[in-house]
């Protein structure tokens, strides 16, 4: 049974009232969603708020889940929409207010940092920070959320070729940034 199928069974069990099923789903994807939101907002408190809103919206609109898509892709779609909605509301004011907190927020370390190569992680995340926001969104939706390109296009409201173009540019720019930081080619 593949991951997608397993998620669908868990989702069905959740809908039937099995609270354990939701716990399994949540524990499986919580870090990925939090990571995605942190990269989008660069603010831990805000990311946590949006994370809650994402799951609350998911439970409210469970009947709208397209069973042909993956569950994670659906969660990422909701999280992306919530984050974009937030920025549409606060716009420039938010940018000014949180400017000082950004550098702190992006450097928050988690216990898991020890498990991965901390230095490399920092470099990759710094490279990611330099990307254009739209390129970063496509990159994260694809690499962290495993969202299909056609779904990314739908989530971001752009043609498939635009989504592919943004991803190509994101990869190219990340490579450049990694090289600047001493990681040359692979």
């Amino acid at each position, binding site marked *: 049974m593949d991951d997608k199928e397993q998620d669908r069974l868990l989702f069905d069990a959740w809908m039937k*009232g099995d609270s354990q099923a939701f716990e399994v789903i949540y524990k499986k994807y919580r870090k990925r969603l939090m990571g995605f939101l942190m990269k989008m907002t660069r603010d831990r408190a805000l990311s946590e708020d949006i994370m809650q809103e994402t799951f609350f919206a998911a439970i409210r609109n469970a009947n709208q889940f397209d069973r042909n898509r993956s569950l994670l892709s659906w969660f990422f779609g909701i999280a992306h929409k919530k984050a974009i909605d937030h920025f549409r509301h606060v716009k420039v004011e938010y940018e000014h207010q949180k400017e000082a907190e950004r550098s702190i927020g992006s450097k928050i370390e988690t216990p898991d940092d020890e498990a991965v190569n901390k230095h490399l992680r920092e470099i990759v995340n710094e490279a990611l920070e330099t990307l254009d926001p739209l390129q970063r969104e496509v990159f*994260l939706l694809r690499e962290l959320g495993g969202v299909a390109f056609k779904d990314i296009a739908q989530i971001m409201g752009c043609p498939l070729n635009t989504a592919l*173009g943004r991803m190509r540019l994101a990869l190219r720019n990340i490579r450049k940034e990694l090289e600047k930081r001493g990681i040359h080619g692979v």
Partner: protein
Amino acid sequence: MECNTWNEKGLLFLAQELDGEESRQFQTHLVSCEFCKKETELYRKEKELYFRTEMFEEEPSSAVDREILRVCSKPVRPTRIFATIPAMVKNTLYSLIVLAIGFSGGAYFVGMKLASDAKKNEKNAIVVDKNSVHPSSQTSSMAAHQEKADSSLKGDSAAHKPEVIKGRGDMSQQGVVPVDLQDDK
């Protein structure tokens, strides 16, 4: 030099989003295209080394975990049928209902007005029928009125005297009697 096939299909191939035939075509293309081969290799290695999910993951706080698990672990209530109707359809429906109420209200008042007018006309018609005046006497009364008007224009002082209205107007003098007064007789 960049390859258009990579731009169009490279990333879709790596994401396993090409259908069987397209995927086979791209694999064949990979054998002959150095650019696509290099890009494919590079992306696969980058993904393995740098784009692992744990590179980007973050730990949410335990308070958030608790809250989400508390709210979302409750059994999901079955969605009401009405809630499944998309918002646009819902809004259209509401607008139509408001319009329908408006129109029916308007039609009701117009109907009421027409009905009362019709009733009035009907009553008047009955009264005129019952007390129909002979054409010759009607002509003579009209002539009398004309005479009165002429004399007032000439400055006849008698004609300036205000007419005393007795009863319910002077129509009774011409043979038109209101229904209720007629009933009293």
